[in-house]
């Protein structure tokens, strides 16, 4: 089976239309005609992830995010970069091939990524709840909620804004580069990553000021990887339903950062 065959099977088994104009869900490194020994799904095709997949005997990597550090994996300005050379040569030398699964991970019903995120947060509501997907839970404090999410996700670098003692019982969550939006019904907004300021409604400054004014609002920033990686395990399960005879594994790219102690 070639990597191209895997892509064809994915198109056939998506259960919905495949957008042939996608610039994301295409091959970003390696040769599509390479014979596939095994598949790794993951959040991002980092060099470290490629090295671990290779060590596990898996030469096809299916990440949710980028390979060459920008959404289009545009490489024309990168060809002289030493890390770009290292990564492309590593793929070539080891017959590694990278096929991104982003748009169709979200368009699959249910959305693999939202299913994984809701599970990671320990919530049971269906991802089919219509936007803005407000989750209700027994009243707790922002501090306890954040501590519980940190424990469940094994995060080292999650960030929280607002009064730890604020009483909260509703939240909304965004995947990846998105943040839930504050409304009167929403106590806590959660998301992967977001611009700190200058957006439509800056949750960080809002939560800082809400704390000053004694209002029960909070923001929890999970990190892009923490928010979207779990769903790639669901993508692996889906692949296993129609890819037979070769191993399909979910391998975590892992949280990219650590954080020093407070100053």
């Amino acid at each position: 089976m070639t990597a191209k065959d895997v892509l064809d099977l994915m198109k056939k088994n998506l259960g919905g239309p495949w957008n042939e104009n996608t610039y994301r869900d295409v091959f970003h490194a390696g040769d599509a005609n390479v014979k596939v020994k095994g598949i790794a799904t993951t959040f991002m095709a980092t060099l470290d992830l490629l090295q671990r997949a290779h060590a596990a005997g898996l030469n096809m990597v299916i990440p949710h995010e980028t390979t060459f550090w920008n959404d289009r994996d545009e490489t024309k300005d990168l060809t002289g970069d030493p890390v770009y050379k290292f990564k492309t040569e590593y793929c070539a030398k080891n017959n590694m091939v990278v096929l991104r699964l982003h748009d169709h991970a979200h368009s699959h019903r249910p959305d693999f990524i939202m299913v994984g995120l809701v599970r990671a947060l320990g919530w049971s509501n269906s991802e089919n709840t219509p936007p803005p997907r407000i989750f209700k839970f027994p009243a707790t404090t922002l501090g306890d909620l954040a501590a519980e999410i940190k424990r469940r996700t094994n995060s080292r670098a999650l960030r929280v804004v607002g009064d730890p003692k604020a009483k909260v019982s509703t939240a909304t969550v965004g995947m990846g580069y998105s943040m839930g939006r504050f409304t009167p019904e929403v106590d806590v907004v959660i998301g992967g990553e977001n611009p700190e300021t200058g957006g439509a409604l800056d949750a960080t400054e809002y939560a800082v000021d809400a704390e000053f004014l004694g209002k029960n609002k909070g923001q929890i920033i999970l990190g892009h990887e923490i928010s979207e990686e779990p769903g790639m395990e669901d993508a692996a399960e889906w692949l296993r339903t129609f890819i037979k005879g070769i191993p399909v594994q979910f391998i975590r790219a892992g949280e990219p950062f650590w954080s020093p102690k407070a100053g």
Partner: protein
Amino acid sequence: MQISRREFTQLTGTAMLIAGPLTAQRTPLTAQQVVDRIQANAGVPWQSGTLDAVKAGDPAIPVTGIATTGMATMDVLSRAVKERSNLVITLEPVFFGRLDGQTPPAVSSAPGRGGPAGVNPDDPVYVAKKDFIQKNGLVVFRFTDHWRLRKPDPFAMGLAQAMAWTKYRVGDDPLRYDIPPITIGALADNLASRLKARAGIRVVGNPESRVHRIAMLPGLTTLAAAVKALPDSDLVLAGETREWESVEYAQDTVASGQKKGLIMLGRVLSQDPGMNVCADWLKKLVPEVPVLWLPAGDPYWRPA
């Protein structure tokens, strides 16, 4: 003893008539006059249609003092009131977004994107902040697009001052500093301590790797800037990045065997010292009133 203005004029007599600067001091300096002075002296031609404008308050009020800040949070505004600084000059928005409290143009009806673009005019946090500004006679001026264009880069200069690195600057490049070799772990601790960080600092790289050549890219750090800077330095000191851009690039640099790193301070924490540079500039430009820097601080914390 209190002396009325009329008595003061009588006491000083004709001397007042020729003392130009003294006479000028008695005319109250308005917020608008300070803004005019900033526009004329920004060092770059003043453009219309930028984000730089009075966002709240009456520009005709007399200024008792000026406070600069990275972000005009409620906490910063209340400290400004205590310091009698009624003109607040902020780098980032005061009303939680690009629109800075203006009524949003339209409500999107796209599925999943419901709701107005900016803050709702009835929002209780917005209303309380607006009332606080009005009640305390504050004027909030946003100064970002022009201050950003200033040379040399005031944000890198401010960060270097905050870290006591100015003496390590490489030539005339305000973005490059060759500091005494230090592990990434110790450097992250130093940054946290000097910048009074809580949980906002995040690091890519081995804490044991020793670094020496620092490239500063405070604020919003683009991939293009990081790809340009990291090959010729050991560590990029960034503000805010995107995880699929500079973060992945730094991860891959490390995985390729290089002992390098990336430290993200957060947008506001990385830029606030640049508003201390702004305060120093304003002290000379507006000598009539006290000028203070009131940093917004690190907004983030983390549970144990």
